[in-house]
């Protein structure tokens, strides 16, 4: 089943990319396609930024803060390009606090799962 989802995910990613390019070429860059293309590029950048979590040398809080900052910037840039707001400042005021709240919750969840994992391991280690 895991393999099935893996291939579904791969198909989705490649299909989405190919479809978007084909639609852009055939239909032109209308408003909807512009948004799709910009958010597709933004999604790729979010994925690339996630590589920061692979670097052991960067502590998790720093990696999370870096991810937050870079993803906020990508979101603000995409939103500005698509004209979601009149100014960069208004986007910053709206996007950044929202991201901050989301990431605070994400980080606490990560730490909680790490803590629970440590407890499970200690139970096993004590039982030896």
């Amino acid at each position, binding site marked *: 089943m895991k393999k099935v989802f893996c291939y579904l995910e791969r198909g989705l990613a490649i299909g989405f990319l190919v479809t978007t390019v084909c639609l852009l070429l055939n239909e032109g860059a209308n408003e909807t396609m512009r948004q799709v293309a910009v958010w597709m590029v933004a999604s790729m950048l979010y994925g690339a930024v996630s590589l920061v979590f692979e670097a*052991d040398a960067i*502590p998790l809080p720093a990696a999370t803060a870096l991810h937050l900052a870079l993803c906020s910037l990508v979101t603000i840039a995409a939103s500005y390009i698509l004209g979601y707001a009149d100014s960069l400042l208004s986007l910053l005021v709206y996007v950044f606090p929202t991201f901050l709240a989301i990431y605070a919750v994400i980080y606490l969840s*990560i*730490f909680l799962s*790490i803590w629970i994992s*440590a407890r499970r*391991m*200690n139970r096993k*280690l004590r039982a030896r």
Partner: protein
Amino acid sequence: MKLTFEPSAGEAEVVVRGDPGDPEVPRILAALQTAAVRQGRLLLRKAGTEREYLLEPEKIDYFSAREGGVLARAGGEDYETRLRLYELSRALRPQGFVQISKGIVVNVQAVRAVEAEFSGNYTALLRDGKTRLTISRSYMRDFRNYVLEGK
């Protein structure tokens, strides 16, 4: 080469005497190493000396890579091994040795407890009650799987 047997009580001891420049000496030591590994033991040199010891892996707390080689920590003492960290990690996996960072392979039996840190890393507290080793994020899954599932 002369081979001498001296009967005595207590633990068996092998003493290899020879010129360190003699090519026969490393050949003898390599043969002893192979024999030791076949018996499930490791031939290790006590750090700072020329004495070599046969140690059972379960006596070793962890191996750490440093410039020039790999050190084994056992009973509060350091020993040197000719083997590389990745070789030790592979060979001693069945005996419960798991790599926890780029430079450390730990004996899971020597781990008393694991602590979660706010930095996202884990710290392994060893059976001596003093030694704390950092478990890197990228090696954590393997360590956790070994502790929880034994694989």
